[in-house]
């Protein structure tokens, strides 16, 4: 827990009392399964979304999302293509700021702090809330420099070797690359590149890791290694993953949000949250017929 100092207070699994301001009650995922309930209230809320909507220009991409993302759990966002799940994910670390015309309304709180408050520095937000992208995107530099870039831009000059080794070890990549840290990151396989991107993200000691379909460009073996890694990282990080692979959501996540698209009057398509629940419950006993339709493969 060397990173505890740099991060907001949090409560471990089953710890009972909470420090988060918006927590109503404590309920573990295991206790929830089988019980008929609405949105489960987890131990500690990292992100609190209330009536969140994202617009590109005048067009709404996703609307009316109410969601509590629990700390140190894996939360999966699933739904058909184009439903706005990636858009929603990119709100959480303000990556949507980089898209021309993107606009967010509603409340998005991070440990009770409004992320879209004008006083919030998006650069600082992104340092705490890391992101792994759909396609591995290593920098055109050496493996070492890929990892060291994040600490360097955040002003870290000392112990870079240790930081790089720790990040690569945590991302289960160290043994494969320790002898070629100075060679180009492009020399790695796709799966290794994606783990490098995860390591790069870990090196800045984030609090949350957002993953946007991290395995969609990978083969099944590389995918299963990333999934194993996610389960390990769950001990220390809050992970939000967008996936179009329902098996993946069922395998790795603790909570799942199902998002789908509504066709509005005039033919515009807007994404909205249908159901959010413990993964086991959502997949075995969904409370919304649309969720059931999607997970049983009837549409999407």
């Amino acid at each position, binding site marked *: 827990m060397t990173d505890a100092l740099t991060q907001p207070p949090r409560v471990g699994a089953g710890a009972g009392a909470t420090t988060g301001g918006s927590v109503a009650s404590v309920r573990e995922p295991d206790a929830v399964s089988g019980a008929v309930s609405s949105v489960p209230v987890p131990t500690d809320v990292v992100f609190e979304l209330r009536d969140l909507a994202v617009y590109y220009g005048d067009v709404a991409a996703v609307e009316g999302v109410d969601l509590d993302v629990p700390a140190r759990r894996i939360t999966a966002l699933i739904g058909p293509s184009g439903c706005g799940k990636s858009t929603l994910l990119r709100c959480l*670390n303000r*990556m949507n700021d*980089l898209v*021309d015309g993107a606009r967010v309304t509603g409340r998005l709180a991070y440990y009770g702090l409004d992320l879209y408050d004008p006083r919030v520095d998006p*650069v*600082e937000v*992104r*340092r*705490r809330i*890391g*992101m792994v*992208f759909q*396609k591995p*995107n*290593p*920098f*055109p*530099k050496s493996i070492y420099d890929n990892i060291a*870039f*994040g600490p*360097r*831009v*955040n002003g870290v000059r000392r112990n870079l070797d240790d930081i790089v080794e720790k990040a690569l070890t945590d991302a289960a990549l160290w043994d494969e690359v320790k002898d070629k840290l100075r060679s180009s990151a*492009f020399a790695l396989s796709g799966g290794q590149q994606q783990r490098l*991107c995860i390591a*790069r*993200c870990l090196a*800045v000691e984030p609090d949350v890791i957002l993953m946007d379909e991290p395995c969609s460009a990978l083969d099944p073996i590389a995918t299963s290694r990333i999934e194993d890694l996610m389960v390990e990282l769950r001990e220390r990080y809050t992970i939000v993953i967008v996936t179009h692979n329902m098996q993946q959501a069922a395998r790795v996540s603790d909570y799942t949000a199902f998002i789908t698209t509504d066709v509005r009057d005039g033919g515009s398509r807007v994404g909205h949250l249908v159901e959010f629940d413990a993964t086991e419950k959502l997949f075995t006993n969904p409370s919304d017929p649309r969720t059931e339709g999607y997970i049983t493969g009837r549409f999407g």
Partner: protein
Amino acid sequence: MGTVALDGARPRKRFLNTGFLVVLWLCLAIGVVSLIVLLVYVFVQGAPAFGPRLWRRFPSFDPAEAGARSAVFGTIYTVALTAAFAVPLGVGAAVYLEEFADRDHWWSRLIALNIQNLAGVPSIVYGILGLAFIARGPLGLGPVILTGGMILALLVLPMVIIASREAIRAVPPSIRDGAMALGATKWQTTWRQVLPAAVPGIATGIILALSRAIGEAAPLIMIGAFVYVPFMPTGLDSKFTVLPIQIFDWVARPQAGFSQLAAAASMLLLLILLGMNAIAITLRNRYRHRW
């Protein structure tokens, strides 16, 4: 078997096909042949006079004694100055236009359009500008090497901007996203990721732009660069000449010795240009990224 006929087009069609191909070959041949003729002519003419004396001796009224030392070094200094002005300005403008400006705003599009038009402005026009504003007028520097460097920098600036913009645009957005997602500022992302990744393309563009500057005579004659300079450039305020002007001067003289010298100096200029283009191509090939 007899029902399938695969024996091809009718004779008329085949004739048209061949004819079209011949026309295309001719188009290519005219370009290539004239280039070869030019090169061979220059090399045959210039070979006897080509030698170290071109860059060791100063110009003289005796063709047997004359060299182009002042022009060779004048060219090197002028182009170095051109690069010193055009590279930071051009790359800076390109970075602003690609990374910071709102690309769809009418104002940005107007600027981009203007830069493209500027790249096509005849060099003599830049010469007039230089004469009016730099050699004389507000700056009044006179026909010195600094003026030459500034004028050539203005001339190639649009080319540098366009090439740099293309190189920067070719850096995939995923690199920027990756850097920003790690908490890098816009400036850190641009300076530490985007620019280094774009350097091969930018360098190629710069070299090609500078090789255009090396071949220019018109704007420098316009500002009053000297033709007969029997001394080395000593500083930014030194009178100077460049190879194209020296060649132009020698060609205009009646003695046969000078036309040989002109061809030899052309050889030298061509060799410098070919060398620079070779560097550009090598850079492009060696550092070509696979994203």
